[in-house]
């Protein structure tokens, strides 16, 4: 029987701290790291199946309308070409994260420029590529004119989800009565996930059973999405995704490649591999919406907020449910009884908007934290102090207590490590040669979510331990931390623990997304191990809580034995399932942090260089100091991208993405990223999970760009309210 825990009450037992192995939290290497470095970790497109054919998509070269005709004969006559598919089940865009059902289908209808319109299958990848490019498609024009610009007055604007609306008190009055107020509008550009590994799928059928090798983040949901798209039973679908070369949201839902590969393979009776080019990934996989954010802050003379407004405009295709949840952290981060939060959606014709790296907070926090800096200046107090004065006792929107809130500690710890006391209050106060130097701070916050997850752990007769779940590791360290939890719980040295992931035949995990992976799947592993511990304790006729396991030796009271002797040739299998429960309703759960940045702005050219950046984070229990730190490095790097370089450039005449490759879509490169410093504010959050861990992956992005914006202002007196803060937005305001 599965050991199931529904998180209805806090788990204050802190079991992991009572364990003896001493590897939890340790900065252990990722076990799959060497495989990735030497190239033996097999990514989706790298499997060599016998008799494989290759599929490549042709792309729509109009933004709207219908496919009127496809000149099949000419392309079918090309060397090696086997088939051309435009099956009505093929996907217009990927499923949204966690959808668990099919997304929009039928590619014969054009919804945006660059959409796939057909899959061409050939004997070789090169033949398929040439043939897909040669495919002539005629289109019938749409009935109505399309709108490509979210700011156009012709765009239909709808209210976003009600769950994102907060309206309490009277914000207008609070603004009028405020001793100090800020009423500013910020904009942020659209972003691409920009994962290194392009999307690819290999489908093969054995009778009615489909095996799909893909690059996907949430297998449990992906099986449902793929089965629903193909109109087959879920039991007919198995997905393998043991290694994923980065996801950042772009591989949450099943995409065009998976469904097309399955259809083509079925028809051909051979395995079919579908690769997307870099440009196709940019053009057809989710974008993060650009945002317009009006921020209103009303404060008393001492800086304490009386009101907070965060009203946003984002965009998506007509009919798509997803709206970038920009105000997600504004709901609970700062006090103020008069609140007005909303997200509206402009319906426009561009590729689908969906989850990209910390949806919501990534762009919402940078605007909020810039506005807070503007307020601090008006009030005339230190921006760190302003933030600390506004940390509420309870969640101001829901009225619930915080499960834990480390914001003040993070601000203090970060300020001390960074040397915040060196900051000049005046702008333009420090000049080194051609460069203006400045410092800025911002808070970090990201909602924590526990997601249902299961895992199986086997203690084998030789004393080795195997962890199994369909959870994925998208480069984050899942292999490492799940092994550590099992090793800690079962007193097994890490070399004797193996972790199997990324196979949908294994117990269903939560998937990698929304930073819930480690806490959720880690809890399932914890519960499975608890069951094994109970079985071992039984052999002593004792209590599990009194059992000590270390290096393969079990002790309970005076008695002790080798674990292998207790197992006695019969492997012990533990199964664990964690489910979210009352604690997520009774408490506001989030991880917090603080960013400190020092920048240099060139007095001539307006180029900004981040010189150093410190992040202090409270993420509950740190499961592996190295992988957690690396997650924060990654997040902070993305925050530099969001601050300075990243921008999807759309042509407003047809909605097509102009910079659809990594040469022109600028992610930060090594030289853009200075020495980053990460400080953890250790805590145990008993409401968050039975392992007291919370989310970490995305937190490092959520607000970092605000610290950089504030540092730019502190350096040169230019307040940029349009991200990314490229030099053209700075030069006009530089002092002579």
């Amino acid at each position, binding site marked *: 029987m599965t050991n199931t825990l529904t998180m209805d009450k806090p788990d204050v037992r802190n079991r992991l701290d009572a364990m003896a192995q001493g590897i939890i939290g340790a900065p252990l290497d990722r076990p799959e790291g060497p495989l990735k470095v030497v190239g033996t970790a097999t990514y989706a497109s790298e499997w060599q199946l016998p008799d494989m054919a290759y599929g490549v998509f042709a792309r729509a070269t109009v933004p709207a309308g219908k496919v009127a005709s496809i000149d099949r004969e000419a392309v079918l006559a090309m060397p090696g070409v086997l088939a051309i598919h435009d099956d009505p089940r093929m996907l217009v865009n990927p499923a949204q994260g966690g959808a668990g059902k099919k997304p929009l289908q039928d590619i014969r209808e054009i919804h945006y420029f660059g959409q796939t319109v057909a899959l061409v299958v050939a004997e070789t990848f090169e033949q398929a*590529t040439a043939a897909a490019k040669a495919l002539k498609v005629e289109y019938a024009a749409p009935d109505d004119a399309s709108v490509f610009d979210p700011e156009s007055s012709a765009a239909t604007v709808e209210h976003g989800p009600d769950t994102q609306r907060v309206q309490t008190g009277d914000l207008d009055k609070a603004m009028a009565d405020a001793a100090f107020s800020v009423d500013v509008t910020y904009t942020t550009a659209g972003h691409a996930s920009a994962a290194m590994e392009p999307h690819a799928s290999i489908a093969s059928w054995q009778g009615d059973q489909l095996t799909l090798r893909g690059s996907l983040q949430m297998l449990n949901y992906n099986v449902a999405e793929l089965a629903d798209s193909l109109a087959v039973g879920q039991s007919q679908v198995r997905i393998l995704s043991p290694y994923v070369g980065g996801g950042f949201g772009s591989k949450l839902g099943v995409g065009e490649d998976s469904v097309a590969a399955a259809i083509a393979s079925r028809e051909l009776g051979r395995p079919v591999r579908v690769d997307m080019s870099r440009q196709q990934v940019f053009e057809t996989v989710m974008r993060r919406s650009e945002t317009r954010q009006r921020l209103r802050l009303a404060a008393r003379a001492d800086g304490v907020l009386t009101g907070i407004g965060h009203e946003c405009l984002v965009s998506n295709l007509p009919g798509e449910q997803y709206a970038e949840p920009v105000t997600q952290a504004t709901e609970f981060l700062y006090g103020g009884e008069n609140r007005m939060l909303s997200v509206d959606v402009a319906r426009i014709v561009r590729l689908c908007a969906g989850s990209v790296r910390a949806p919501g907070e990534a762009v919402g926090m940078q605007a909020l934290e810039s506005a807070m800096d503007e307020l601090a200046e008006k009030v005339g107090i230190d921006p760190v102090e302003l933030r600390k004065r506004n940390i509420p006792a309870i969640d101001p929107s829901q009225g619930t207590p915080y499960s834990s809130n480390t914001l003040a500690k993070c601000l203090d710890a970060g300020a001390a490590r960074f040397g915040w006391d060196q900051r000049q209050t005046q702008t333009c106060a420090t000049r080194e040669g*051609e460069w203006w130097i400045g410092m800025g701070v911002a808070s970090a916050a990201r909602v924590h979510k526990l997601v249902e997850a299961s895992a199986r752990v086997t203690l084998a007769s030789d004393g080795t331990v195997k962890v199994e779940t369909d959870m994925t590791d998208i480069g984050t360290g899942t292999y490492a931390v799940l092994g550590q939890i099992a090793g800690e719980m079962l007193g097994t040295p890490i070399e004797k623990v193996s972790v199997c992931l990324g196979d949908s035949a294994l117990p269903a995990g939560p998937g990698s997304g929304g930073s819930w992976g480690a806490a959720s799947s880690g809890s399932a592993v914890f519960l499975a191990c608890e069951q094994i511990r109970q079985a071992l304790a039984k052999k002593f006729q004792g209590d599990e809580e009194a059992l000590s396991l270390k290096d393969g030796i079990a002790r309970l009271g005076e008695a002790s034995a080798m674990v292998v002797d207790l197992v006695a040739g019969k492997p012990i299998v533990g199964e664990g399932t964690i489910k979210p429960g009352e604690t997520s309703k009774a408490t506001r759960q989030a991880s917090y942090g603080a960013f400190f940045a020092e920048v240099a702005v060139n007095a*001539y*050219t307006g180029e900004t260089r981040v010189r150093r950046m410190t992040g202090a984070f409270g993420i509950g229990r740190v499961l592996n100091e190295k992988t957690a730190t690396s997650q924060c490095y990654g997040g902070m790097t993305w925050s530099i991208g969001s601050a*300075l370089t990243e921008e999807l450039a759309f*042509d407003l005449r047809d909605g097509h993405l102009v910079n659809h490759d990594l040469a022109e879509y600028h992610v930060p490169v090594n*030289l853009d990223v200075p020495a980053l410093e990460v400080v953890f504010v250790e805590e145990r959050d008993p409401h968050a999970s039975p392992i007291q861990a919370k989310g970490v992956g995305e937190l490092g992005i959520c607000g970092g760009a605000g610290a950089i914006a504030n540092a730019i202002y502190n350096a040169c007196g230019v307040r940029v309210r349009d991200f990314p803060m490229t030099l053209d937005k700075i030069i006009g305001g530089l002092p002579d």
Partner: protein
Amino acid sequence: MKAFTYARAGSTADAVAADAMKIAGGTNLLDLMKLEVEVPRRLVDINRLPLAAIEPAGGGLRIGAVVRNSDLAADIRVRRDYAVLSKALLAGASGQLRNKATTGGNLCQRTRCGYFTDTAMPCNKREPGSGCQAIGGFNRIHAILGASDACIATYPGDMAVAMSALDAVVEIEGTAGSRSVAVRDFHRLPGNTPERDNVLEADDLITAVTLPAPVPGRHAYRKVRDRSSYAFALVSIAAVVEMDAGRIASASLAFGGLAHKPWHDPAIAEILIGKAPSKALFDKAADVLLAGAQGQGANDFKIPLARRTLHAVLAELTGETA
């Protein structure tokens, strides 16, 4: 990518007579072939031709066409006597790319205009007569000088900007024999024939670039771009300036990122030479540079940016920051 034949040239004459597109490092050509922006039926590989030497010639240096960018940037003579060239090379692309990229290929690299590289878009450079979709579109990286109604693309490279400042000469082998063309005249303005980036004819092979004898002065290559590295120039300036008794004795400047070719205007140096450096003087030089400047919307900022960058470079080289 379309199917093509491939042959390796045994001699420069082979390469000229091959009736084929030359491939050197392939770092630009292969990308464009994958996109089907370039669709050569035949490729001739010139990498093994004996054109990989850097030798003294006429008081200067003769750089073979297949000398790698990394090797050229690291050459001690180049670093000592032509620092602007070494700096420009190192400001370009990435270490891996520079290891493959060649002198000839770098000169011939094509524009990064996002409409040129997308075969679904009208583009006069790729498909003469189809129109220029960059006009009225996303043209952040496009030209503010010397553009035409037919094309507003920029030449994206760095190396050639330094070579223009140094007044280097391109040596070309063609069906009608060999000839020399100044780097300053090698690239063209788009006019009504933007499909032609430069003066090369289809069969022409660049065999070398020669640098004249070194001139005295301080060298700078300033590249302003959208991230710290691995991005093309929004504005770049190659400059060699010599000071004598508080006055500018000689100056040579060329500009990248502004036009369809490295921009060289002798009138800019004329304004500077013989004068004591000052902000007012630098402004006058910028006035000359930007007299005909025309923004396209998304690139309007390049006009003040070019002025500001010129100030930065001249302040650095003359020591005049007041």
